[in-house]
């Protein structure tokens, strides 16, 4: 790795000031993407002259849940923190499932949620779960604070809506409705230590007579960014939460996605997986919504 100036600010304002002053300084959290990219000199950015560690900034830390206001996950929370959080496992199971399969134990102990989202991989395993939970990403930078819905954050492979010198501060997720449930799964040849061929998350809210009141479906690794399957969502709205509607939704999802062929799988195989996994995740999310 080429050398750089290293800073470890202990306050958010100090980090923003450093980003401004160093001009081209790169934030680092767990380093599991960035260090590897710097070693392979694969970043599309010029090699950073400064690296600014975010790990000592208390404002970026911590996970808090409140029944009425929902969930806050600080950007430097690790995948282990998230996967082990009792609140997240209970109220946002798909988020715990996404975080709980990132690499190995070692990876999960280092990898942060901010790094996973800001790295902007189409296969990022926490992205579909946040999309289906209507998460908001809180961002701060030279022009102050703003908040973006998850589906406006991902712009292209390795590209996000973050402007230069902006930082992701935290993810906020609304409190889950009654009779709601969510689930995430990815297909990989190996159970751990692999990148999603396809990832599918679903979140449903059911009425008392078991109809679909609210539905979100999100897909990973089938487009330049993680995406919502909006046609399938529209189709399912108001339908009974039955095998028939889930089977038809699976076909709709497979038809509406537009994957590419690469080393991990052909477009045709990915389409097939989207169908199969969508049906499975709808069933699992609905069962959880029913309290199962």
């Amino acid at each position: 790795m080429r050398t750089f100036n290293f800073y470890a600010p202990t306050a958010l304002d100090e980090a923003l000031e450093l980003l401004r002053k160093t001009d081209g300084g790169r934030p680092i959290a767990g380093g599991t993407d960035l260090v590897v990219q710097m070693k392979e000199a694969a970043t599309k950015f010029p090699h950073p002259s400064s690296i600014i560690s975010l790990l000592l900034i208390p404002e970026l830390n911590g996970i808090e849940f409140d029944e009425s206001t929902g969930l806050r996950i600080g950007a430097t929370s690790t995948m282990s923190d998230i996967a082990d959080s009792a609140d997240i496992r209970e109220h946002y199971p798909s988020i715990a499932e996404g975080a709980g399969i990132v690499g190995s134990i070692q990876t999960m102990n280092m990898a942060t949620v901010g790094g996973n989202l800001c790295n902007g991989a189409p296969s990022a395993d926490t992205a579909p779960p946040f999309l289906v939970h209507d998460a908001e990403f809180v961002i701060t930078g030279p022009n102050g604070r703003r908040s973006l819905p998850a589906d406006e954050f991902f712009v292209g492979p390795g590209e996000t809506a973050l402007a230069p010198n902006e930082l992701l501060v935290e993810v906020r997720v609304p409190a889950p409705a009654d009779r709601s449930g969510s689930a995430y799964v990815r297909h990989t040849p190996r159970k751990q230590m692999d990148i999603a061929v396809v990832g599918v998350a679903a979140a449903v809210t059911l009425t008392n007579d078991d109809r679909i009141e609210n539905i979100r479906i999100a897909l990973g690794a089938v487009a330049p960014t993680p995406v919502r399957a909006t046609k399938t969502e529209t189709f399912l709205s108001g339908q009974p939460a039955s095998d028939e509607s889930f089977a038809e939704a699976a076909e709709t999802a497979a038809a509406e996605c537009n994957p590419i062929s690469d080393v991990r799988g052909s477009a045709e195989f990915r389409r097939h997986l989207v169908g199969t996994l969508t049906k499975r995740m709808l069933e699992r999310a609905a069962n959880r919504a029913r309290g199962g």
Partner: protein
Amino acid sequence: MGKVNISFTINGSSHQIDVEPQWTLLEMVREQLHLTGTKEGCGTGDCGACSMIVDGRLITSCCMLAPQADGSDVTTVEGLLANGDLHPVQQAFIETGGVQCGFCTPGMIMATKALLDRTPKPTLDDIREGLAGNLCRCTGYTKIYEAVMTASGQEI
């Protein structure tokens, strides 16, 4: 580009040193502290040979920047020795033949230590999952799983 002054504890002894900012924790431990028990396999987080325990958590030291170890408590495979006696996990790897060329062994042992700290009596599935980030080119893993079972006082 200036060196970074950091303080940390490694295997129970405190250090304050200047490190190259672009060094990984692995490079610092091997090249500067001359603790060469920990190995570098892939250098990209995939093989686990470089596993260390930092503040109680198992990590791959090849993807952690050395300056980010400031203030932390690091344990490497050398730190498992107590009064000259091998750690029960080390002893179990020897007894069951969980070591062949030995290159993956320091990482396997650290991952096993971290697993048993969390789950003192792991099932075979717990072991497979706990060691999923550690690759071995020699043993075929069976003897390694037996070592973990032995170290946790369970029948193979």
